């Protein structure tokens, strides 16, 4: 493969990769209309745009997963068509997705060297040679876990580092990172940025795809903006600032994004009361009250025990000790269906893996928690087509879900719209408590604002809303009250003006050792 040749030419002028006029349509929908983008060797290049702008399609074309309908891609100035992911890898392109492609049951070192085993003369795996190659790279990107540990127990941050090590060992010249910090805490993100800067210093280019503009501004030398399938701007130097980016992303300055007001009505009576809930080591002695009409935030670092706490409340796991009461009555869910019957709804963190049946329609997915109200009678449980339709249509309308129609498979919608479908599933049930784990992860600015407004409206309608978020900006915007968890415990209860980004971050680090006295 001549694409692997080492001569890079004059580094500043000839792009490593240049894509011109890419087009791609699926059925009737044009995902890419005219997308161009060039990446110089050794730069961190940002790619931003609202969900549905064509970023994912573009990446999938680069990776050899999709064929463009028109347009060309040049690698080192030569035309390149990635016929398969393997082919893209040979040309020096590596891809790290939101859903990381590591093998959970294999060790760190096996994952790094996957597909590149060193062999002894007998054809057996040569572990000494393998380690000799993998260890320096793993150390360089700061993999802290033992290299013989299985990947399945490791954190998302560690997974990212392993994936980067894997890309480097393949002598990749471009690493494409799709929403790398979506699942990372602030500290973990900072560590990742250091690694990215180090990678860049060694001459490897990075295509950094993210909704988080601050990170993009911080990391990238140049940023391309996609909108509605077209590349609408390429910003660098002095022209690269937040305002210009936002303008390019949404096509107009939309400064009034944080319109979400705090609760006007005072908090109502307690709906859910949690006392001493424990499931070691992730949840320890957690007590709190959730009231009617409030949006309660759960802040803290990834791994602080927030998702695990939500699972206990929703009956997905059983607590070792502690009690819960729901509207005054003892609440001991044995499984999720108990929790649903008692009036709790749950929107999980991994909406594609744990929330939706992707091959099924919008109507199917919305109806899933509402089947009881869609049937003719409990003894003749035939779905009444009209009810199913009107429920789905009502949700599509009320939540402004962008979909061709209610029979479209939900896997074809963008991330923000998938999330709305999931929320819509619970609105029909009208739960007393709605728990949302990372409700706006991977969702574009516009949809994010809509989801926030929606949650506020639900609270104003009397629902108790519990929101878990790892984005420091999100909770101050949205919540009446924020509980900060660290090391499985609630370490701070913030309300009113005390809910600030700084306050949440400071409290997040206040673990058992009280390292920070905030």
């Amino acid at each position, binding site marked *: 493969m001549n694409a692997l040749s080492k001569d890079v030419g004059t580094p500043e002028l000839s792009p490593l990769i240049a894509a011109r006029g890419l087009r791609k*349509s699926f059925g009737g929908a044009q995902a890419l209309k005219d997308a161009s983008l060039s990446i110089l060797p050794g730069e961190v290049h940002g790619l931003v745009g609202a969900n549905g702008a064509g970023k994912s399609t573009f990446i999938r074309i680069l990776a050899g*997963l*999709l*064929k463009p*309908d028109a347009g060309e891609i040049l690698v080192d100035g030569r035309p390149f*068509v990635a*016929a*398969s992911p393997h*082919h893209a890898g040979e040309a020096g392109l590596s891809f790290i997705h939101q859903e990381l492609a590591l093998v959970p049951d294999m060790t760190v070192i096996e994952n790094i060297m996957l597909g590149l085993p060193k062999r002894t003369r007998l054809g057996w795996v040569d572990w000494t040679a393998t380690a000799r190659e993998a260890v320096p790279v793993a150390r360089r990107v700061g993999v802290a876990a033992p290299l013989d540990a299985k990947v399945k127990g490791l954190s998302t941050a560690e997974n990212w580092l392993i994936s980067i090590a894997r890309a480097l060992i393949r002598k990749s010249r471009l690493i494409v990172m799709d929403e790398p910090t979506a699942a990372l805490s602030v500290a973990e993100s900072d560590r990742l940025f250091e690694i990215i800067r180090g990678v860049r210093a060694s001459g490897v280019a990075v295509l950094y795809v993210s909704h988080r503009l601050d990170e993009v501004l911080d990391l990238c030398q140049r940023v391309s903006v996609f909108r509605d399938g077209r590349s609408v701007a390429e910003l660098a130097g002095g022209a690269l600032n937040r305002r210009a980016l936002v303008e390019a992303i949404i096509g107009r300055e939309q400064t009034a994004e944080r319109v979400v007001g705090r609760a006007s009505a005072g908090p109502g009576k307690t709906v859910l009361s949690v006392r001493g809930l424990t499931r070691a080591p992730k949840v320890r002695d957690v007590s709190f009250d959730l009231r009617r009409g409030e949006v309660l935030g759960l802040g803290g670092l990834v791994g602080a025990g927030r998702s695990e706490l939500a699972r206990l409340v*929703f009956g*997905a796991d059983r607590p070792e000790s502690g009690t819960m009461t729901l509207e005054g009555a003892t609440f001991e869910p044995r*499984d*999720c*269906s108990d*929790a*649903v*019957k008692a009036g709790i709804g*749950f929107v*999980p963190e991994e909406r594609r*893996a*744990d*929330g*939706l*049946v*992707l*091959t*099924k329609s919008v109507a*199917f997915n919305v*109806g*899933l*928690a509402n*089947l*009881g109200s*869609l*049937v003719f009678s409990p003894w003749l*449980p*035939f*779905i009444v087509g009209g009810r199913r339709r009107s429920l789905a249509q009502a949700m599509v309308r009320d939540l402004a879900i962008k979909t061709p129609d209610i029979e479209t498979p939900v896997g074809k919608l963008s991330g923000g719209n998938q999330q709305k479908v999931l929320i819509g*599933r619970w609105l029909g049930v009208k739960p007393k408590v709605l728990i949302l784990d990372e409700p706006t992860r991977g969702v574009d600015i516009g949809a994010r604002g809509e989801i926030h407004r929606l949650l506020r409206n639900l609270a104003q309608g009397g629902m108790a809303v519990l929101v878990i978020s790892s984005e420091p900006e999100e909770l101050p915007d949205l919540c009446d009250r924020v509980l900060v968890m660290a090391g499985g415990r609630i370490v701070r209860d913030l309300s009113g003006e005390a809910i600030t980004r700084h306050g949440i971050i400071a409290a997040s680090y206040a673990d058992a050792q009280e390292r920070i006295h905030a």
Partner: protein
Amino acid sequence: MSDITLSARQLSPSAKAALGVFARYGTVIGLAAMIAAFSILSPDAFPTVNNFVNVLNQTSLAMIIAGGLTLAVIVGELDLSIGYAASLHGVLVTGLIVQTKLPVPLAIVVVLMLGAVIGIVNGLIVTKLRVNSVIATLGVGTIIVGLSFAYSAGVPIAAGVPDEFLDLALGRWLFGVPNPIIVMALVLGALWALVERTSIGQEIQAVGGNPSAARLAGINVDRIKIIGFVISGVCAALTGILLASRLGSGTASAADSYLLSAFAAVFLGSATLRDGEFHVFGTFVGALIIAFGFNGLNIFGAPTFSQYMFQGAILIVAVGLSSLGRMLAET
């Protein structure tokens, strides 16, 4: 390597659309083409009402057991016990009638209930003990083989089977249509309505599509899986009963081969009309393809062993072409 060269080729949108249609309707088109071809090649023997009724009658038992299996695979499990179970049910129903002297309807009800019990056992082993369904149902199926031989001592129960029981499979109670066809139509119709039109069906599809999402939507996943196994078990019992009635005897391994034809029909069906999903109507089409294929081979005097080759080959070709067509249509 061939898939790379195939997918590297730029396909025009119309070619993709055609491939997508082919992936969905290929099996139906294939069935129609097969019937047309046999009709042209053998205009006297093949395209007659008698022959068609005969083919349907022959394949009804396979369709019933395959319909039940469809429910088990929709919830994401495999049931390998059905063939052996159907054999046991055949032995048992004749034994209960001939030896225990139970009234025929009561014997049938007892055996259907046993089918449900076997389904519950399979389901409990898979959901509560978390044993992989292949292993669980293979184990249960092997135990069932032992039970069949224990009950019958390996000797077919044939003497003294009353006409009342034989009439079940051999009679034509409605408009001269053979009873197995009526039973098959009722069973498949009911299963189709259950899966496609009821709330339990939605839950069944959700559990098969994404068990984790189903659970977090408040669906009792274990219960739904057990329901899948129970339906599979009851349909196996029905097939076993009808087979014993048709053969006029209960034989310890008479229905074993239904396992293979049921799987073939179900997987052929997954390549029909929907993108790789299991569904009851697809199973019906899959069973028809196998039945007409066998019938055609018979008419042309092909040796019996060729039927197995046909069944295996058509399965791989149909499912393979369908998934290949789908893949090319999507890239």
